[in-house]
Structures are given as C-alpha cells and as structure tokens.
C-alpha cells in the first residue's frame, strides 16, 4: 500500500497511536481506549510472562529454559548487589520487571511482524509517555526509599564530602539540579534511542521501496546498498535494544544506591 504511493512513505506513521477496535473508551473525561500501544504492552507482558513461566520448574539442576530465566534474574541480582550492595536484593522484583519490560518491548518492536498482513508492529518504548512514566516510577522509588530511610538527612546527598563551607550553597543547587534532571534524562534517553533507530530503519526501507519503484538502475544504486545498510543497522538496533534496557536498569540501581547508602 505504502509502496504504491511512492514517496508518500511517512517514517513517523509507525509511532501513531490509534484505538485497536476503532472505538474510543472515554472514562470520566479521560480517553482510556485500548490502543495499538496498549496492545503491544499486553503482548510484551504476555511474552515475558510466558518466558518466565517456562523457567518456573525450580529444579535443582536447571534445564535450558530455566537456566536462561535464571541468567536474567542472576544478571539483575548481580547488578543490584554490585551497585547497591546486599541491601539491593530487595529491589530485584522492581528492577527485573523494569529491565525485562523495556528489553522485551524494544525487541518486540524490532521483530518483523509487519510481514504478516494486518499486523503492525509497535515499539512501546519509543513513546515519551511510556518511558517518562517508567522514569518517574524509578525516581519516585528513589525518593521514597531515600526519605524513608534517611529522612531530611537525605538532602546531604547534594553536599558531597569535602565541600568547602563557602561552596555549599552553590554545590547544593548544582547537585539538586542534576538530581532533578535524572528522571528526564532517564526517560528521554530510551525514547530518543528507540525513536531514532526506528526512523532510520523506516527511512532506509523507504529508500529500498522507492528505488524498486523507480527502476532497475535505482535498485542497484539505491535499494541494494540501503538494504545492506538496513541489515547492519537492524543488528545494531538489536544491540541498542539490549543496551538501552541495561542502561535504564543500571541507572535506576545507581540512583537506588544513592538513596540506600547516601554516599
């Protein structure tokens, strides 16, 4: 359909949110429609749950699947222990959910579901509302843990050790700013990485399709190199999908370390 329209391919169309059934569910003035975005959140949840259930045999000697699931839990557990210390094990459920949700959403968005007619893949994590909410949850947990554990002493986080007394007001403001920017940087980083990768892939795909429509010469000059580039960038995007999930979880655990151990 898009190929027939030639240059009308819109690389932004993939991010469009629309209700799945076409009907809007408005509850109390809020539009809570089950959109394609919500559908892919459910798909992410379902595939992640299926993956986890496969590893729930809880045998003493793990099989392949159980070993894979335990590899992921062990990875998150090791990350929390190395960043926060033994007290960090308490956050395994949250950081694991966060890491796996982002990882699965990123990878599901990259899988070629588009070859099935009528299925439109959608990357949940390419939406600022989603990454922003996840970042705010992480930030809120840091605040709750920090103030819950240290009370107002938590503000000493903004005054590093050895700061000269004269500098304290300035450093305090600077550190407070950098602390408050954390949820934005956390949410924006993932959103931008996913959006940029998918736009790049879609632009290159448009080159391939447009080249094919314009004749054999363009196929050789434009479509084939673009396609080769797409293959490479798809692999790179798979790497980015893992790295961005890792970075999100890692920064969350680093921030949790601040909240648990102050300095």
């Amino acid at each position, binding site marked *: 359909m898009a190929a027939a329209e030639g240059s009308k391919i819109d690389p932004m169309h993939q991010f469009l949110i629309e209700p799945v059934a076409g009907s809007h569910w408005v509850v109390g003035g809020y539009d*809570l429609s089950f*959109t394609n975005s919500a559908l892919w959140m459910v798909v992410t949840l379902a595939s992640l749950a299926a993956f986890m259930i496969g590893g729930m045999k809880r045998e003493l000697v793990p099989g392949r699947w159980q070993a894979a699931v335990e590899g992921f*839990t062990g990875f998150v557990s090791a990350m929390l222990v190395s960043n926060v210390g033994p007290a960090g094990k308490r956050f*395994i*459920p949250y950081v694991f*959910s966060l890491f796996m949700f982002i990882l699965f959403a990123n990878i599901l968005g990259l899988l070629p579901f588009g070859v099935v007619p009528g299925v439109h893949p959608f990357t949940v994590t390419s939406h600022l*509302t989603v990454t922003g909410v996840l970042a705010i949850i992480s930030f809120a947990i840091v605040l709750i843990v920090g103030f819950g554990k240290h009370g107002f002493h938590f503000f000493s986080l903004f005054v590093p050790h050895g700061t000269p007394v004269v500098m304290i007001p300035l450093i305090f403001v600077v550190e407070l700013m950098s602390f408050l920017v954390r949820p934005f940087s956390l949410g924006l980083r993932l959103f931008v990485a996913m959006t940029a990768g998918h736009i790049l892939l879609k632009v290159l795909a448009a080159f391939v399709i447009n080249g094919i429509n314009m004749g054999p010469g363009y196929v050789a000059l434009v479509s084939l190199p673009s396609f080769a580039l797409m293959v490479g960038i798809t692999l790179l995007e798979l790497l980015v999908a893992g790295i961005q999930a890792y970075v999100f979880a890692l920064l969350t655990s680093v921030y949790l370390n601040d909240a648990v151990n102050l300095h």
Partner: protein
Amino acid sequence: MPQISQIAATYASQIFWLLITFGLLYFVVGKGMVTKIVATVDAREAKIEGDLAAAEAARRQADTVEDAWRAQMEAARVAAAAETAAAKAQATQSAEAQVKAADASLAERLGHHDFAIANAKAEALANLDTVAAEAAQQLVAKLSGIDVSVDQAAHAVREVRAHG
C-alpha cells in the same frame, strides 16, 4: 512526531495501560515468580556450598583416618619387629640352654662311665693280686712242698710287684 503531537490525546490511555501492564508485571512476575526463582538459585548455591563443605570435611576425615591408619601400621610394624627380635632371642636362649643341658648330661654320663671303668680296673687289679697269690702258693707248694699261707704268698707277690 506523533509521540508529541498526540500526547494530549493519548497520555491518559498510555499511562492507564502502562500502569495496568507494568503493575501486573511487577506483582505477578516480579514479586511472584522472580522471588521464587531467586530463592531457588539461592537454595542451589547454599546446597552447593554445603556439599562442598561436606566434601571438604569428608576429605579432612579421610586424611585423619589415613594418618591414624599409617600410625597404626607403623606401631604394628614396630611391635612385630620387637616380637620377632624377642622370639629370636628366646630361641637362641633356649637352644643354648638345651645345648648346655645336653653337655651336662653327657659329662655326667661320661663321669659315670669313667667311675665304672676305674672300679672295674681296681676290681680286676684286686682279683689279679688274689690270683697271683694263689698261683704263688700253689707254685711254692708244688716246688718245695712247703705250705705257705695265702697271706704270705700275697705279701710276696706284693713285694715282687713293688720291685718290678
């Protein structure tokens, strides 16, 4: 960019469904499954640690048993050597005693025989004197017709024998 142009229209649905799916994920998968999986991993690690400790303890016990066995063997060897030496000494001693006893009995028997020989010799000598005296008496009686007593004849024989 729909993420920003649609934000006012879609934020409620996005946040609503994210909270539902992520909440389910956190409570069912994170709190429910991951906790159990981590517990399984911890139990396995504890079991491995315990098994390794048990193996180490068993190895140490085997070492002590082996040391005890070695010491026991050494003691047994020493005892056996001592016993052998004692038996050898006893054998030597008893052999010596037996030889000595045999020597003594031989000596005693030799003494008896010597004594018997001496007696026999003395008896023979005494008999010889008597025979010689009687022969001398009969000779004198036959030659000179003088009856000499046996005592005189014996005296004469003694005299002749004394002078050779």
